[in-house]
């Protein structure tokens, strides 16, 4: 949905791809770990902001969670092809800015910014 709207507005496809990947990974995290969550997308003249609010267990050690390969996925999630420990690292790789605040037992807020002009190009 976010993707098709941004496409119609004429956002560059490389930026679109980064937004789509970041939004998908964030969505999967909410689906797998949280009770519920909301993804908001804001487009300004210079950037696209994604804000993901969830009600859930929270992330105990954010730094650790950002390390590629680190995962707390259950056997069941792994069976479905998830839990490679690449979710948050993938978001970070595609974002120009990633800010995570988490409160144990309450939930997590992800703020992702992707610049429209320039930016890191996804690396």
């Amino acid at each position: 949905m976010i993707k098709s709207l941004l496409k119609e507005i004429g956002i560059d496809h490389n930026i679109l791809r980064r937004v789509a990947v970041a939004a998908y990974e964030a969505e999967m995290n909410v689906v797998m770990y949280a009770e519920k969550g909301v993804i908001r997308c804001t487009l300004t003249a210079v950037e696209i902001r994604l804000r993901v609010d969830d009600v859930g267990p929270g992330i105990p050690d954010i730094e650790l969670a950002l390390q590629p390969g680190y995962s707390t996925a259950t056997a069941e999630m792994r069976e479905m092809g998830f839990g490679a420990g690449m979710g948050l690292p993938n978001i970070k790789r595609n974002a120009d800015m990633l800010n995570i605040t988490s409160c144990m037992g309450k939930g997590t807020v992800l703020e992702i910014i992707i610049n429209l002009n320039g930016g890191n190009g996804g690396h």
Partner: protein
Amino acid sequence: MAGTDRRHSIKVDENTCIGCVACMKACPVKAVRVRNRKAKIDYERCIDCGECLRVCAYNAVIPITTLPSDLKRFKYRVAIPSPVLYSQFGQQVLPNEILAALKDVGFDHVHDEALVCEMTTLAIEEYLNENKSLRPVISSTCPVVVRLIQRLFPALCQLIVPIEPPRETAAKKLRKEISAEFEIPPGDIGIFNVTSCSAKMVSISSPETRAQSSLDGAISIHEIYNAIMTRLKKTQAPSMLRTQGDMSGIGLGWAVSGGEIEGLQNLYKVAVSGVSDTIRILEDVESGKLKNIDYLECLICPGGCVGGPLAVENRFIAASNIVRSIRLFGNNRRVDAAFVRRLYDEQLFSFEWAVKPRPFPALAKEKRESVRRLKIKERMIKRLPGIDCGLCGAPDCKTLAEDIARGQARLKDCVILLNRL
């Protein structure tokens, strides 16, 4: 081809079109509108998939292919039939008999494409083993899929395997060989693909990955079917090809969905066919979900090329005929890997340049104006009845809303709303 767009292979005959909404409804990229009771194709959007061609009950949507009179321009005429042709004449007729009858129709030479298909399989395998960072790599065989990716999924252009489909490679190789052997200038040789595909003509008249196609045209199987059929009875074909191993079973498989990937060894490969399933899987690729897949074969026609709009035989029967032929000839590799490796290094298979993104135009050139129009569109969607009747001349309410936002239609085009006033 006066009056049509050279870059496209489909036109509407306004004399026969009655302005029903069948083609408009079938179009996956919403490129058709009905205006003044005639279907109009927006060539800016058309990807030549042929869906409109399939559904038109009035034969008003016409494929543009090479005509017999176009063949006369060339001194030496070559036909490269797609393996689909072998599936069109029942189970008793063998490929070599079909090739002989085709030659009899009026060609100096006919060339089996199946072997080149197998060579291309090996070249793709070579590429996949050499390039492991980009996944999934997507097949370049279907000209419609290439155009669909350019338009709807521009970010995926880089995933398209930079290897020409077998028909191009075969033509490139043949022109050189024939020119040398018979001392004919390359320009006097006409090489034609005999195909079930209505989009091949576009990939020949305006190729996306090279300055000029190696082929000179595409002949519709539907068009040439009777001529072959009548000659099949007369031609005494040499029976050399009857025994196992004389034709590439791996190559024959390219006529059906899953055939291109069948011969790839030790790779995670997936085959998809049909417009809606192809769009669905490309959406998943775009979202980054399928990076674990090595190779993705997408063919726009249901069931693969046997399901092409210019085929004659029912596609399920055609597929069964292909499977039988594969069993007859065996599916072991017939091409020497080292030989293909050498041709691969000589760039026989390579694109001249990578597929370039050509995204559909946004709602407006300027982003702020796009957002404004997007808001109009959403407001219109709320007001329109949402029953997608097509009477306004747009395929569905959402598209009418978009046309209104672009200033190309008005709310009062909606017949249902007009009646409620």
